C-alpha cells in the first residue's frame, strides 16, 4: 500500500470529513488546555458515525464509481500480498514483451495452489506510467493466456482480479491485434479445464476487463463497477458530453448490486465502511473468504462438468423477448 498519508476526500464525503476534523480539533484543544470536552466529543462522534452510515448506505452509482477509482483503493498486488502465503510473479508473453499492466504468477492461497492474474494500476505518476494506468496491451492478454494454459497443464485453478479503465487504445496495440488478443482469451477461457474465479476489485471497463474475466464464478466488490464502456465514454457518445458521466453510470447500471439483478454477478463482496481503502486487510480477508468458498465448490467438479456449466452460464446471459 501507499506510504503517503495524505487523506483523499471525495466530494460526497466532505460533511463527514468536516465533522471528523472538528472532533480532532476539540481533542487537541482538550489536550492543550485540559478543559473537559468529552461530552461534546462523544456527541459529535455519534453524529459522525450516523452520518457515515447514512452516506455509505445510500451511495449513488456515480459515487461508487468514484470509490472504485479512489487513489488509495487496494490494487491487485495489494490483495495478492494479503491473500497468498506464496507468490512468484511470472513475466512476459514469450512472443513480444512483458506488460506491466497485468501481473500474473503462481500462488498458494489457503490450502490451494493456484495461478493469479490481475490488472495492475500504479499509485503515483511514476508507477502509473510503468503500469500504463492499468491499461493492458495485447502482450498483457497473451501473457495471461500463457498462464491460463500453464494452469490447465498442471491442473491449477485460475483466479483473476479485474481492475482496468480499459484495454489500451494505442497505435501499437492495434498493430499487434488488441482485439484478437482479447477474443482469443474469451475463447480459451471458455474451454479451460480448470476452475476459474473472477473478482472485479475496482474498475471493469469493457472488453479490456472481460479479456481476463470469463469464469465459473464472477464475484464483485461492493464498490466496484463493471460495464460495456466507461461512464465517460458512454456519455461522450450518447450525450455528446463526457461531463454527463454520472447520468451514464446511472443509465448503464454499473454497480455490483445491479449486476446481481442482471444475473451476471454471483456474489457481492462487502467492503469495510467507506470503501476497501479504509481497511485493506479486512477487504482482502473478505476477498479471500469468498474465493475459498467458491473454490471448494468448484474443485468437486470434473473438467467436463466445469466447461459444460460455464458454457450454460454464459448462454443464459442477456435479456430478450421472443414472439411466436
Amino acid at each position, binding site marked *: 500500500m501507499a506510504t503517503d498519508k495524505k487523506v483523499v476526500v471525495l466530494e460526497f464525503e466532505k460533511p463527514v470529513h468536516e465533522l471528523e476534523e472538528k472532533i480532532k480539533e476539540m481533542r487537541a484543544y482538550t489536550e492543550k488546555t485540559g478543559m473537559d470536552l468529552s461530552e461534546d466529543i462523544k456527541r459529535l462522534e455519534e453524529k459522525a458515525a450516523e452520518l457515515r452510515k447514512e452516506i455509505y448506505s445510500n451511495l449513488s452509482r456515480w459515487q461508487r464509481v468514484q470509490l472504485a477509482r479512489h487513489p488509495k483503493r487496494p490494487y491487485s498486488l495489494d490483495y495478492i500480498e494479503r491473500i497468498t502465503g506464496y507468490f512468484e510473479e511470472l513475466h512476459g508473453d514469450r512472443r513480444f514483451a512483458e506488460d506491466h499492466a497485468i501481473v500474473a504468477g503462481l500462488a498458494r492461497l489457503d490450502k490451494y495452489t493456484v495461478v493469479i492474474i490481475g490488472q495492475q494500476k500504479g499509485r503515483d505518476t511514476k508507477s502509473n506510467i510503468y503500469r500504463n494506468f492499468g491499461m493492458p496491451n495485447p502482450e498483457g492478454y497473451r501473457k495471461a493466456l500463457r498462464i491460463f494454459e500453464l494452469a490447465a497443464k498442471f491442473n491449477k485453478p485460475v483466479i483473476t482480479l479485474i481492475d482496468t479503465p480499459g484495454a489500451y*487504445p494505442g497505435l501499437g496495440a492495434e498493430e499487434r491485434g488488441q*482485439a484478437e488478443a482479447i*477474443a482469443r482469451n474469451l*475463447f480459451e477461457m471458455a474451454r479451460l479445464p480448470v476452475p476459474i474465479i473472477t473478482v472485479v476489485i475496482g474498475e471493469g471497463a469493457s*472488453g479490456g476487463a472481460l479479456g481476463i474475466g470469463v469464469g465459473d464464478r464472477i464475484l464483485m466488490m461492493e464498490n466496484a463497477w463493471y*460495464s460495456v464502456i466507461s461512464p465517460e465514454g458512454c456519455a461522450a457518445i450518447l450525450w455528446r458530453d463526457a461531463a454527463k458521466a454520472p447520468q451514464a453510470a446511472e443509465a448503464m447500471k454499473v454497480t455490483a448490486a445491479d449486476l446481481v439483478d*442482471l444475473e451476471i454477478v454471483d456474489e457481492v463482496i462487502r467492503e469495510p465502511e467507506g470503501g476497501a481503502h479504509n481497511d485493506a486487510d479486512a477487504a482482502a480477508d473478505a476477498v479471500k473468504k469468498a474465493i475459498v468458498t467458491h473454490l471448494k465448490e468448484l474443485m468437486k467438479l470434473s473438467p467436463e462438468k466445469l466447461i459444460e456449466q460455464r458454457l450454460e452460464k*454464459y*448462454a443464459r446471459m442477456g435479456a430478450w423477448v421472443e*414472439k411466436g
Partner: protein
Amino acid sequence: MDWFKRKKKISTSAPKKDVPDGLWVKCDGCGTIIYKKELEKKYYVCSQCDHHFRVGSDVYIDLLFDEGTFKEFNADIASDDPLDFTDVKSYRDKYQATVKKTGLKEAVITGTGKMNKIPVVAALMDFRFMGGSMGSVVGEKIGRAIDMAWKKKQPLIILSASGGARMHEGVLSLMQLAKTSAKLARLAERNIPYISLLTNPTTGGTTASYAMLGDVHIAEPGALIGFAGPRVIKQTIGQDLPPGFQRSEFVRDHGFLDLIVHRHELKQRISDILAFFKHKNPAK
C-alpha cells in the same frame, strides 16, 4: 462477368433498399457520378475505382447464397430493454424508430443457405440497425446460429458489420462477447469450419470476439477493422494516425487477416475454401 448478375430478390426480414435514394450516386472513393441502377447491378462496387460501398444484409444474402436457398431463422427475437435505458431519448423509442426506419428487426439476420451447393449456417450483421451494435439479441441470435452449425455439422459464416457492443444494454451487451466466443470454442471442438467475413466497419466488441476467431479471416477491401475507434486512439496518443491505419490492408499486413477479397469474388472464394475443408483425402 455475368456470374454476378443480379438475381431475383428473396424474402427475408431484410428491407428492400439501402444506399441513398435518387437516380445518381457519387462514389466516395473517386468522386465519379454513377447511375444507381448500374451500381446496384455491380453489388455497389464502383466500376471506376473498385470502392466498396457499405451495403445491407439483403445485398449480401443475394450475393453469397444460391438463389432462393437462404432461409432465415429466429427472426422474431427482440430487445427487452433490460436496463430501462434512457439517454437523451429512451432506448425503447430509438429501437422502435430504427425498426420502422430500416425495416430490419435487429442488427443481425441468421439463417441457413447454400453457397455453390454447399450448405452453411450464416449470421449477417447489418450496420443500418443502430450501427450494427451487438446487444443481447445479436449475441443470442449469433449464439443460436453457432449452435445450429454445431448441431447440423455445417460450416458457419459470420459477416460482421458493427461499431461494437450496444451501450444501451450495458454489461449484458459485454457478456455477449463471452457467450458467442464460448459457443465458438464448442464449435471448434467438433472441427467445423468457421469463416469470419469482416466488412466496413468491424470494430469494438465485435472484433474482440467472433470476428477474430475464425479459421479463416476474410475482409472486403478498405474496411475499417480494429478494436478502439480511430477517434479515441487519436485522442489518446495526441497525434494523427498514419494513412490506411486500421484498414483491411493494414490489418492483413499486421497478420490478423488471411485474405482481402473483392465483393464480386466472395462467394466463389469462400465456397472453394469450404470445399477444401470438406474434402477427404484418399487413404492411400
